[in-house]
């Protein structure tokens, strides 16, 4: 029973069902490590790697995993890939690894990844699971880079470490502190809700006008 096309599998997670901004999953890393764009990118890359690998592996092996122990098996697979990502990052991107610290290990409990395994990979073939993981991973990256961008621009006055304003800019330190994460996420959701509602009202008005 095929209900979605491969393109939809891929596109869905990017914006329409964006894991962070719409589904509100994976908020812990979205709040914790987005104090700079570089950190947001490193976190996204690690999550992307873990999710793609686990999705393919789980959808390949789904026939061998008894229903009763599926969640433990998924977590085992995810934890393995997280450990690999942790070691590879430490070896090849030690500076980012130092910045991200404990949050790499916490990718294991990112409910976004487990959610995709339970609702999608465990029921679909590896190719479509990979597309779904790519889409969701890109959506996650967009959300994190958006937050990291806002926080770095206002909190440090730079983007990806490149200073944007003159030396007279006084950074809003709160934006790079944990509180800034909550504020930024709140404002982004506020803006999205506002535009969503405006679009709806306009559509309704249009429908009323035509009827």
């Amino acid at each position, binding site marked *: 029973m095929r209900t979605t096309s491969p393109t939809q599998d891929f596109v869905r997670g990017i914006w329409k069902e964006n894991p962070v901004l719409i589904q509100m999953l994976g908020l812990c890393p979205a709040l914790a490590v987005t104090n700079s764009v570089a950190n947001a990118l490193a976190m996204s890359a690690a999550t992307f790697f873990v999710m793609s690998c686990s999705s393919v592996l789980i959808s390949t092996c789904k026939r061998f995993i008894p229903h009763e122990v599926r969640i433990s098996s998924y977590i085992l697979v995810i934890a393995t890939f997280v450990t690999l990502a942790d070691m*590879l990052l430490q070896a090849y991107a030690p500076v980012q690894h130092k910045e991200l610290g404990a949050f790499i290990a916490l990718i294991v409990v990112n409910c976004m990844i487990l959610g995709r395994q339970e609702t999608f990979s465990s029921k679909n073939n590896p190719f479509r699971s990979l597309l779904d993981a790519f889409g969701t991973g890109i959506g996650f990256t967009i959300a994190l880079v958006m937050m990291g961008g806002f926080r770095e621009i206002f909190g440090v006055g730079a983007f990806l470490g490149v200073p944007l304003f003159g030396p007279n800019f006084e950074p809003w330190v709160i934006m790079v502190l944990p509180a800034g994460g909550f504020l930024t996420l709140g404002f982004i959701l506020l803006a999205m809700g506002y535009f969503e509602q405006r679009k709806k009202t306009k559509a309704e008005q249009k429908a009323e006008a035509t009827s």
Partner: protein
Amino acid sequence: MNQPEDNKGQIDVKIQVEDPASDAAQDAPAPEEVSTFRLVATLAIAGALAGLLIVLVNLHTKPIIDKWKAEQLQIAVYEVLPGVERYDTFYLVDDGLSTTLPDGAKESEFKRVYVGRDEKGETTGVAISRGESGFQDVIMVIFGHDPATGKVSGMKILDSKETPGLGDKIFKDMDFVDQFFAGPETPLLGVKAGSGKGEPNEIDMITGATISSKAVIQIINNALAEWKPVLDRGIPSSPADEAPAEEAP
């Protein structure tokens, strides 16, 4: 464009409804009890494979990680001991300094100092690393110290998770860091910025990061207090030039 668009709304609804439904559908073909053995075996095999994979990758990445750490340490030692040609690592073995460890001992269990030498092999300074609690987590500091004058010759933060924007000024605020390179006398005394009396052992603390800056100063003082008795007993010359280093009486 028109046909798929029309279906789109329906499709999305379908996915959401489908999840619980297909869950039940999946249960249907396997209603018979799965044996406990199979459950345990699945997890055991998966666990074994996962362990194997992790070990293989670790074998590959560990040397790279260790090399990077050693390089970082080396850079730090040269940074905090200005004008040093090379350095020797001495371990604290039985209250004495030794370049070699007892047989079968693990390197990581021993405290150590890095003794900097100039081109003639004379000791010019000692670098010591130490970690203690800061504001968030342990701050790892390495600093250079000249045992002859008792002055600090430099300081570098090896590892810290201090608050970005505030506590991280202990390594980002160059006015603070430079004070340690200006050769302050020990024991260091942290003072509120601008309220110092001009004593040679004063360090201006960072406004807004008092706990973190105090921690750095405290770490250096504690390390010196711990190592002073050992260093006062004399630092052995480099094992490499033991033979030619005939010191004049």
